[in-house]
C-alpha cells in the first residue's frame, strides 16, 4: 500500500463532512451507544445521532459486509415446479466511519474467503460499495494485542482513509486509496494540506505479547497432543461468544425458511465452537469434544489460514477475551502455545 495524500481535518469539521457524505447518497455506519447496552454499536448514523468514538464496539463492523442474516435466494412452488428467484443484492453506497485499525485489517481475512474464485457476489457488491474510514487508537486496553499479530494502533491496512489525532482540535487524515480520495474530493473545503512534516501523533502503545512465529511453528506439532488441547479448553462452555464477536470469523450456516407457497434461503453467522457445526446426519461428530472444537478455532486462525491464504485469522482486537464468560484469554493460550516445549 502506498499513501496517496495527507490532509488535516479540524474536529469541528467532522459533522459537516458527514453531512456531505449523506448528501452524496452514502449511508454512514458508525459506532454509537444503543440504549443501556454495554459498549458502542455500529448502526446507521442519522443526522441527529451521536457518534461514539470513545467506547469499544461490542461487535466489529463485519456485519456491513457479512450480515448476521442475509437472504441469498427465494423459491416458490408453481404447481409441481419450484421456481428459483435471485435476490436483489443490497449494496447501498456506505461509509464505515470510525472503524479501528484492527477491525479494518480483518477485512483481509474476509476478502480472502469471499473474494476467492468463485467470488461471493453478496459480499463483493457490499465491499465495493463501502468506504472504510478508520481512526487510529489513541488508547488501548489490556486485552488489545494487535501488535502481536502484525497490526498496530495506527496500521493503515485495509483503510481508505486513516484518521489519527494530532492534538486537541485536529485530525491527520491519510488517504490510502482512490475511494478515500473520493471522500476528500467531495468536501475539499473541509480539508487542509498537511505538508510533508511528520507530526506528533496520539497513538496508543500496545506491547507485543507473544511470538507469532513460534505459535505458527508449534501448532502443527501440537495438533495431536490431545491432553494439551483439553487442558487449554477445560473451562470452555462452548458458548461461541468468541466467534460471534470476532471480526475475522466468517463461517456461516444456510437455512431455509418456507411455507407451502415458497420461501427464502438465508445465510446466517455460525461458529465452529458449537457441537452442531460438525454433526453429521449419521450422528457421528468428527469434532465430538469441546477441546477439538477449541483446537479447530486456534488452528484455523493461526495455522490453516496462514498456510492457505498467507494471512493470520486474528487481528488482536481482544473481543473474544472480553466476551468469554470463563475468561479463556486468547493471549494466554497463544503464549502457552508459543512457549510449549515441542
Amino acid at each position, binding site marked *: 500500500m502506498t499513501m496517496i495524500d495527507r490532509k488535516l481535518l479540524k474536529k469541528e469539521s467532522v459533522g459537516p463532512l458527514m453531512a456531505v457524505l449523506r448528501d452524496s447518497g452514502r449511508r454512514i455506519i458508525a459506532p454509537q451507544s444503543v*440504549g443501556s447496552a454495554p459498549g458502542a454499536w455500529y448502526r446507521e448514523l442519522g443526522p441527529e445521532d451521536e457518534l461514539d468514538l470513545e467506547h469499544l464496539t461490542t461487535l466489529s463492523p463485519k456485519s456491513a459486509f457479512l450480515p448476521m442474516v442475509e437472504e441469498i435466494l427465494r423459491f416458490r412452488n408453481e404447481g409441481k415446479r419450484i421456481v428459483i428467484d435471485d435476490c436483489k443484492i443490497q449494496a447501498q453506497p456506505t461509509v464505515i466511519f470510525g472503524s479501528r485499525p484492527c477491525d479494518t485489517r480483518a477485512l483481509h481475512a474476509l476478502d480472502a474467503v469471499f473474494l476467492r474464485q468463485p467470488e461471493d457476489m453478496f459480499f463483493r457488491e457490499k465491499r465495493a460499495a463501502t468506504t472504510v474510514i478508520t481512526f487510529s487508537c489513541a488508547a488501548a486496553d489490556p*486485552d488489545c494485542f494487535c501488535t502481536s499479530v502484525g497490526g498496530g494502533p495506527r496500521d493503515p491496512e485495509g483503510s481508505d482513509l486513516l484518521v489519527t489525532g494530532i492534538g486537541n482540535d485536529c485530525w491527520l487524515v491519510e488517504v490510502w486509496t482512490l475511494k478515500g480520495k473520493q471522500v476528500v474530493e467531495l468536501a475539499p473545503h473541509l480539508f487542509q494540506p498537511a505538508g510533508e512534516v511528520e507530526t506528533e501523533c496520539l497513538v496508543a502503545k500496545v506491547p507485543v505479547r507473544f511470538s507469532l512465529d513460534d505459535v505458527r511453528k508449534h501448532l502443527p506439532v501440537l495438533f495431536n497432543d490431545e491432553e494439551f488441547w483439553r487442558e487449554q479448553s477445560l*473451562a470452555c462452555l462452548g458458548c461461541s461468544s468468541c466467534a460471534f464477536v470476532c471480526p475475522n470469523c466468517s463461517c456461516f450456516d444456510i*437455512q431455509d425458511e418456507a411455507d407451502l407457497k415458497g420461501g427464502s434461503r438465508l445465510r*446466517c*453467522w455460525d461458529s465452529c465452537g458449537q457441537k452442531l457445526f460438525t454433526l453429521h446426519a449419521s450422528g457421528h461428530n468428527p469434532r465430538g469434544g469441546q477441546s477439538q472444537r477449541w483446537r479447530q478455532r486456534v488452528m484455523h486462525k493461526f495455522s490453516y489460514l496462514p498456510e492457505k491464504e498467507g494471512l493470520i485469522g486474528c487481528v488482536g482486537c481482544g473481543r473474544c477475551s472480553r466476551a468469554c464468560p470463563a475468561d479463556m484469554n486468547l493471549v494466554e493460550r497463544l503464549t502457552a502455545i508459543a512457549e510449549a516445549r515441542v
Partner: protein
Amino acid sequence: MQLIIGFAKGSNGRRRPLFARSPEQLDQLILEDNPPLNLAVYLRKPEIKRLGKAGVVATPAILRSVLQLAAENQYHDSEALFLALDADGAVVELSAVDQIAAFVSSSPNTPFPSGDGIQSKDREERFAYWQQEFERCIRCYACRASCPMCYCEQCIADSNQPQWVPVPPHTLGNLEWHVARAMHLAGRCVGCGACSKACPAGIPLGLMNQFLAELVEKEFGQRAGMATKLDYPLSVFNVKDREDFIK
C-alpha cells in the same frame, strides 16, 4: 476427591473458573460473591467428568442449581461434594441431596436480581423493551451454554426437522428463541444470573426468567431449587389441573 472447582484470579481484573487437581493449585482459590458464571454448569461437561469426583466451592445459587438438577434426575446423591459457607462463615461439606436441601432451606432466601422497573410497565412498553433488547441478539446461544438448567442433549433450537425455532437472528427468530427458552425455564430457573452475564450483547435475559419464576411461585407455590422433589407446572400432568383456560 480428584478435583476442586472454584474461582481464581483471571486476566485483566476478571475471575475465571479454577480446576485444581493438586494441593498447590488450591492456593489460587478465591471466594467470589459475584461470580461471572455458575460453576454447576461444569458438572455435566464430559471433559470435567473424566477428571474424577469433583468438589465445588458452592454459592447459594450453585446449591440451588444442584437441587433443581437433582429434582430433575440430573444430579444424583454424592456425585460431587459441595463446600459452602454457613451463617457463621464456617465451611460445610455437603454431598447428599437431602443435606443440600436442608442447608438451602436453612439459608436466607436469595432474592432474584431486580429489574430496572420494567416489570411494572404495561404490556406494550414491555414488548417494545424486549424488541429493542433482542435486536442486539446474535444467536450465539451463550445464554444456553452458561445455564446449568439447559442440559438438553438436543436443544429445541437445534432441531431442524421440524424446525421449531427460526435459526436466523432476525426479529422473529430472536423473539421465538428467547420466549421458548424462558418458557422452558419457567419454574426451573434459580435466578443465578449467569445468562445475563454471559450474553456478549448485554441483554438482561435473567429478567424474563425472573418474571416467570415469580409467576410460577405465585400461581403454583413453587420455587426452583428449594426442594429435592418438585412438580413442575409445565411438565406434570395432573387430572385435577384446571382446564378452564382452554377455550
